[in-house]
């Protein structure tokens, strides 16, 4: 119990000593019920085929398992449209979501996988409701048929002929040596690969207007793991890491923007000394900072002209929509960080922006704001072409102290350099090259290492712009940045082929 001297009413800032975990902030029961639903199907299936293995098709003991299976299928198909039940490497997936099983249930999983393996199948798909008679028919084919007719090819043919909304799938490829395969990938290639994962996962999350809780958890979990992998890359080699934010996509803007913002934010966070766990929170906040925009009509998001007041009002609601997205989760420290950063990321340090709150924006949101705006400025949008990186930095520096935290922005420019990794630059010698190493210190900000493009437009020899001749004159100087699109080039492709530094 508190032994503090009671303060005057409303006159003291409250002293909070409770931890976020102790609050056990949990909202909604959708998550638990979703998990329950998926495992209910597993149990219904298990009960069905196990009972069928023991009893004849006409035995009374099969009545209840058949009925149960019919009901579960009807319920699941009604909720999710179809049932895809697949085994892979000892795990079971229902509609692409891996089933989380308790230790008591693993025998169920094991037996199910064994059932599939005996028949050479990887799983099955149910496209519609199936009645009791249909289930009996299914059992005849899967359980009671002679062994030679229970192999995949025969099963597939019989099921297609039966007219049942049920088909078997082949076994998926097994995982083997993937870690070894990744281990040999070039460091940069691995960074792009991890980046691709993040984009695909986030895109998957955005694709569903109303994702089920299990799907959302699955994707968010994978995103979290991918963000962790990105942080590991950043901690190992931040220059390589930064290069992956050179990937731009005007068509699939949202997922790339989310991934690029995460990369840039993590790089900035690492520079100011955030710990790994804090970087993970920052990365997740950066990925999801614009998740609220999924509620804004595409016609507004992609409008070429200026927004009218009503449209602007809708757009300015997206931080709140983003908060709403997370208020259906059990709220942990990470989720709190995300919520705060999502809410704050358009609030300006000078007091402007939206939504309005009396307290200044949080540290993570100030980082996300810088990263997000830089990526947006350097990407083609429907209403304007992309700014070149140094132009974008110049525009942002002009708003240091009003829109952006001036100190963080300074660190950001230092981190990227005036010509960030991946920038196509023209040199005073007339050569064109791609920056492969820059930033991090004052001299490097202006004088990065550049991979010169050969006649075929591919990067080749690297030159260090700090090199001087005998009289102390720099051999090469950047004259200006070039737009890769002008040459039909892609910065990310240039980087991936550049020699390592």
């Amino acid at each position, binding site marked *: 119990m508190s032994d503090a001297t009671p303060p005057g009413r409303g006159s003291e800032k409250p002293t909070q000593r409770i931890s976020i975990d102790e609050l056990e902030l949990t*909202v909604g029961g959708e998550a638990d019920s979703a998990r329950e639903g998926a495992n209910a199907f597993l149990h219904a299936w298990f009960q069905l085929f196990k009972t069928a293995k023991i009893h004849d098709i006409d035995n009374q003991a099969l009545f209840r398992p058949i009925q149960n299976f019919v009901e579960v299928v009807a319920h699941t198909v009604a909720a999710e449209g179809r049932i895809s039940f697949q085994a892979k490497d000892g795990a079971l997936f229902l509609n692409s979501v891996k089933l989380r099983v308790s230790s008591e249930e693993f025998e169920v999983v094991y037996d199910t996988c064994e059932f599939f393996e005996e028949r050479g199948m990887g799983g099955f798909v149910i496209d519609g409701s199936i009645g009791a008679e249909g289930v009996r028919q299914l059992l005849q084919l899967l359980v009671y048929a002679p062994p030679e007719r229970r192999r995949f090819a025969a099963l597939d043919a019989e099921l297609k002929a039966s007219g049942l909304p049920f088909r078997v*799938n082949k076994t998926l490829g097994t995982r083997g040596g993937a870690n070894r395969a990744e281990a040999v990938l070039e460091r940069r290639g691995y960074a792009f*690969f991890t980046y*691709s*994962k993040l984009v695909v996962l986030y895109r998957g999350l955005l694709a569903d207007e109303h994702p089920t809780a299990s799907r959302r958890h699955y994707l968010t979990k994978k995103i979290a793991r991918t963000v962790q992998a990105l942080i590991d890359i950043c901690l190992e080699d931040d220059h390589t890491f930064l290069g992956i934010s050179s990937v731009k996509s005007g068509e699939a803007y949202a997922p790339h923007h989310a991934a690029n913002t995460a990369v840039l934010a993590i790089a900035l966070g690492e520079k100011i000394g955030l710990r790994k766990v804090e970087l993970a929170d920052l990365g997740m906040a950066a990925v999801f900072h614009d998740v609220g925009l999924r509620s804004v009509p595409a016609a507004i998001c992609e409008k070429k002209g200026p927004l009218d007041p009503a449209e602007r009002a809708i757009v300015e609601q997206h931080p709140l929509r983003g908060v709403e997205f997370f208020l259906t989760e059990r709220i942990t420290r990470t989720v709190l960080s995300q919520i705060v950063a999502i809410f704050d990321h358009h609030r300006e340090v000078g007091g402007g922006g939206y939504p309005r709150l009396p307290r200044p924006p949080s540290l993570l949101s100030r980082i996300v704001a810088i990263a997000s705006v830089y990526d947006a400025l350097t990407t083609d949008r429907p209403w304007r072409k992309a700014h070149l990186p140094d132009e974008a930095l110049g525009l942002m520096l002009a708003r240091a102290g009003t829109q952006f935290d001036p100190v963080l922005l300074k*660190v950001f420019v230092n981190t990227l350099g005036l010509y960030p990794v991946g920038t196509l630059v023209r040199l005073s010698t007339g050569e064109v090259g791609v920056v492969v190493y820059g930033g991090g210190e004052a001299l490097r900000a202006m004088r990065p290492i550049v991979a010169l493009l050969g*006649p075929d437009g591919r990067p080749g020899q690297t030159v260090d712009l700090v090199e001087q001749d005998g009289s102390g004159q720099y051999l090469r100087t950047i004259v200006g940045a070039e737009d890769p699109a002008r*040459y039909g080039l892609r910065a990310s492709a240039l980087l991936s082929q550049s020699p390592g530094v």
Partner: protein
Amino acid sequence: MAQAAGPIPEFVHQLETSLRTRRLYAPHMAPYHEAAQRLLERFRAAVGSEGFSLRLGPTDLFHGKVSLLHRPKREDSFFFPLYRDGLRELTFTPEATERELDALLGAFEAEEKRRLGPSEDAVGFLWRCDLQGITYNAIDGIGDEEVGDDEPEAGREDYRALVAELNSKIQSPAAPTTGQSYAFVLDADVHVSASDLHYEATTTRKAFEDNPTILDLTREEAEAVRADVNSEDENALLERFVAVLFGVLTDPARNVSEVGLAPVFEKLLEGYWEASEFVSLDDLLSRLHRAAESAPDSGSRLLAHAMVTKFVSPERIRRTLEMVHRTVPFAQVTPIWDLGGDEAWPLLVDFLARLPEGTLRNELLGYLRHRLGASPNLLRTTLASPEPHRIRAGLAIVDETLEGVYAKELLDLAVHPSEAIRLKALGFAGRLGGAPGIEILWRAMEDDPAKPVRLLAFRMIAQARVPGLAGRLMALVTNPAFADRPAWEQEKYARLLGSVGGEAAAPLFQSWIPTKRWFWKAQDYESAEVALHGLAACGGSSLAKVRAHASGGGKLGEIARRVMESVASAGTETGETVTGHEPAAGRRR
């Protein structure tokens, strides 16, 4: 299967044993510490100078190809949750510390102890442990598996394929489309001017060339960044989160559904409550209350009001009363009571009724009196309550400043069935004075069924300056029904009349003294005693007469002596002192 021997197997088995011990004992207990110590010792023996790796399978822990632990039943397998979430190998180096070993055990326990977030798996938890001396390999099921020859089922996303496709697109070379062969070729005659007006105008290059230090962080800026990083602790984060929730709640557009917001607020309130964080709880409640009154949107106001009302339930208030009686400072619970509205009042009054004298009672009285400023009718309801204990508590709340406000209700209590309450009411009546008060006292004196009440009424009437009292008393005592009153009451009336009426009443008293000398009956003695009391109360010559009788003999002398003893023990010779607004008839001291 025979157990493999050696330091590494022993470490693995100790790992399992230590986890089992941690399940049974709390961290401060000796077996917990002993298990940790043993684990550390086994670890040091196993890791040596080279370190070692363990590989995870679905049912086994391997060192190389040898299974060190075979656990086919998942409930017995501490490593299965991590395996299921992708962990395949753990590598222990000599640099691993005791803290890291403990963190690793925490990762094994994470799922069982519900430490995983809804979108966090066990391997992600392990990553967050940030172990330096213990590294691991894990798969995530996305992109890190080799695609087999079989195609995935049609129509469903295969994330691995999508990742591979995007990755290929990102990194695939594209032939330049410049149409200008010289674009990338160094031409000895081509030199591009280092001065580019466009860039000087629009980039920071010129500024940086002029002053390369503009991008350097000053010492103050560096310290500011460090302070910023260190200030974002959990408490600060929670405060920000609450600010966000209120930002959402009070947004004019208000598009956040009720379903999402209310449960979070409720959880916060409950969390603070369970942790006895009353300062934070008070702050949150008062902010909700303000939102209930001033949020721009009516729906938001209703929502906030509903949350406050739901939390500050009668049951909650009762709990606070138990707490404030034992542990929580008074000032930290009163904001909750404030928000309980008028419904809280009867609970607080009942609580007051049970409290003994002391600081808490005084504090509560002060608080209740303060509340009456906004809702004076609350006390009216209390004073009219059918529950005597509530009325008594209500009477305790009434102080000198409140008596006038609740005069009517207080006077009405003079006829309450409870004697104790009537006594209190008479006290107020006496202090209030005036015609209504006097009338209350007179009726109580005349008719109240309880002797203590009538005695008090007598006393208070005697203290009051009642115009025309002597006449009223004279009429009462000369009424034939007066003789039916008990002797003690007759005596009271006689003394009162004597003290108020003075010598003018003496003849009446004299007439009550029996004149016969023999065959006195009981009522003669009573009559004589009443008369002598009355005469004594008249003072002056009448008192002298009584003294004279007392020095004489016979029955009258005996009675007179008793009367004089009574007068002497009362401490006055002229009856009650007179107080009040008007001079009483009769002599006074």
